[in-house]
């Protein structure tokens, strides 16, 4: 089950098939590799693009490749009508860079670096990073074990007014491809 409407699913299918090579389109359940997914405009500038692909991927070797069903799951989790619980669950998995079920110092450090930029002059100094992460843990670590687990994360997210609106992703209608019957309508 999904949070997408029929129109959104059709649009997703169109965009997905655009990513496939010619012969793959006849495959019953094609799987698109990660670097092709990352060429989508909606994901290109996202600092978490790789993590998103890895989280939603169902492949055995966890290489970040997506089937169409995975792609729909991705869009559904990021859609407007997904619940806060779904979004916070997936946000937690995306931010958990080492996939160990908790956000520890290393995860938070990688998260902050993703947000501020990868180049040396856009990173925080190690002293600032230490101060920032200790502040984050002060605010969110309820049981004081030095890591943020899922329920603590969800508690923090529920108090955040911006989360639902910022954790959303929409597919664009391709600007220049008009369906054929629409062209016909113009001339009638």
């Amino acid at each position: 089950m999904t949070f997408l409407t029929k129109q959104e699913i059709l649009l997703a299918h169109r965009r997905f098939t655009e990513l496939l090579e010619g012969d793959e389109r006849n495959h019953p359940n094609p799987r698109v590799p990660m670097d092709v997914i990352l060429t989508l405009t909606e994901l290109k500038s996202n600092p978490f693009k790789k993590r998103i692909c890895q989280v939603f991927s169902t492949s055995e070797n966890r290489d970040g490749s997506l089937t169409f069903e995975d792609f729909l799951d991705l869009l559904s989790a990021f859609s407007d009508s997904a619940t806060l619980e779904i979004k916070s669950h997936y946000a937690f998995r995306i931010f958990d860079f080492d996939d160990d079920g908790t956000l520890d110092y290393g995860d938070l450090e990688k998260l902050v670096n993703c947000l501020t930029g990868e180049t040396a002059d856009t990173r925080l100094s190690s002293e600032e990073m230490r101060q920032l992460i200790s502040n984050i843990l002060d605010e969110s670590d309820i049981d004081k074990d030095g890591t943020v687990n899922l329920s603590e994360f969800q508690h923090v997210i529920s108090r955040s007014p911006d989360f639902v609106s910022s954790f959303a992703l929409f597919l664009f209608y391709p600007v220049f491809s008009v369906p054929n019957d629409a062209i016909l309508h113009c001339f009638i």
Partner: protein
Amino acid sequence: SYQSLLYRRKSSSIKSRGSSKGRLSISGRLNTERRKSQMEQRRMEERKNLISCRQWKAGARRYMKRLTDDAHTFLSSMKLWRSDIHQIEGMFGTGILSYFSFLRFLVALNLIIFLVMFCFVMLPMIIDPHPIRNVTYNEHQGILINYHEHILDLLSGEGILERTYLLYGFYKSDEIRFPMFTYKLPLAYLLTTLGYLLLSLLWIVKRSAEGFKRHLIKDEDRFQSFCNKIFAGWDFCITSESAAKQKRNSLLYELKTDLEDERIKQKMADRTRKDKCRIYFLRVILNMFVIGVLAVCFFCIYAATTFSQKAENRNKKVNFIVDLIHEYLPSIVITLANFITPLLFSVIINFEDYSPAFEIRFTLMRCVFMRLTSIAVLLFSLWSQLKQCGTDPCSNQKLCNCWETRVGQEMYKLTIFDFIIILSVTLFVEFPRKMLVHFCKCPLAKMWGLQEFSIPQNVLEIVYGQTICWIGTFYCPMLPAICTIKYFCIFYIKKLSLIKNCRPATRPFRASSSHFFFLGVLLIGLILACLPISISLPSQACGPFSNYNTSWEALPAAVEALPQNAKNFINLLGSETFAVSFFVVTCLAMFYVIALAGAHKKVINQLREKLVMVCRLDSLQSEGWPVKNPCTEIFPGFCVTGGPGQTLPDPEAVSGPECPSGQIHTAAPQSQQAEPQLPHQLLQQLQ
């Protein structure tokens, strides 16, 4: 989010989806076999339970929701300048967006005020079946009106403009007799003035209430500001590389500022006694210097106003330019003072050693004080001239005869001059600066750089203009229309200047906290505007209140003319018994609301503690201790677990927060009939 507004999806049916009741979670691959069978079981029960009445109710609810959402979308698409503002938001962010939406709000407000004045004050006079146009005291008839005089009159509000609907002196104090009824113009004038002040107050309070609620919640969670920025900081809708880069820069800047604020707070806490004494002494000296500067400015404004009034009284036309300067002298002095003092304040604040956030606020407070007090000083100097009327034989004849018209003219001149200054600064300062920076190769120009759009100063400018409009509307009823046109033009001027001349601010502006601040400053301006009206003594020679001793006398006179029952009722409303009982009832309501807020806070704290306990018990359980079921122990009857053999929850029951678990794979989103509820939703049900 920036880009999502630019690329709005065409399908608008997204928002029309109802609540997710009945919707199951995504991705069946996360469900174990157990959950799949639970789902089917639940689905069958759902089918049995949904009798037609409930179906109809649900359908009706969905329809109403869709209707309201469509209405909202339609109304928001009708808003003025929607596409322009989206474009600005996409390019420059939410800080500058707040300035332009504030401008749009003022255009709407001024338009409504003008419509109110027009309908109740000007329209009756226009459609008066028996107009008697008395010649006003001002004699310009028979004098050759040449071209320069016209322009001078237009710019200063004198001459021919005094005999139009523009100024107070034109309105007569008699009743207007229509075939069906008589229309008391003085009463209408007074009530319209009160009406537009009240309307402005209500609209501003409504606007600030939305920001205030969010501000309060944010204040409560000030301890959570870092988490918000890190976990909810990235807008996943951003698709362009430049917007992503800008977002990264602004996030980096915000984080660095916050960390620095914390470090400075720590440093301030570590100050020794000697340091503190030195700093306080320095602050006292600098504040006295600031007060001295302000006093000098106010004295200059007073002198300029007095000189200008005397020069006009002489009525000698020397020269077009000199006359214009005499007319506009108060405006020129006020504008110069308002230009120099912010620069001075921003230099002084560097020596006073406050925290960065407080520095910005304190400088703004000083600038606000400067701007609003300069208007007050202008009014005071006019009033001091008025006091000399009875006694001094050499006093200003024009002023004494119809001082309201003079005040109206001063306000009119201030508005016009303000507009001219904004236009000329954009044309003659910002454009050349841009040309210089682009085409000149010298390093000085590069260092100076392009203009930065300083939001606080720009907002103060328009708040100042709006205060003048409110004060002046009583004396110059067409001023709101002039201000509407002025702000309309300013929007396009500023937008053009922003896009062509300005670079994005190096210090990203926090829109949310300052939105409330700007509306607060606007409220102070409104309160200042109420003062001249409340202490007015109308002149006897002109205007709607020439028959009364004070303008408020129009009210009792109107009450006298009412039938006896209405008179008794109004007397009751004005009596002490009513006032006291109303006050007592308001106090009771306030106590109730305060008690409710306190109870909310207490429950939230309790829930938080319980959550901590659940986490601890759960971690103990995962370590192997014999803890049965942490969730149901702490939140009895609330929890939903997926244990085998567990009875399915009653669909009407409250479901508590999701049971925390250390392992990520078992903490999959539960598929339940009622969604897992957040603490504040729990709270509502507990009420």
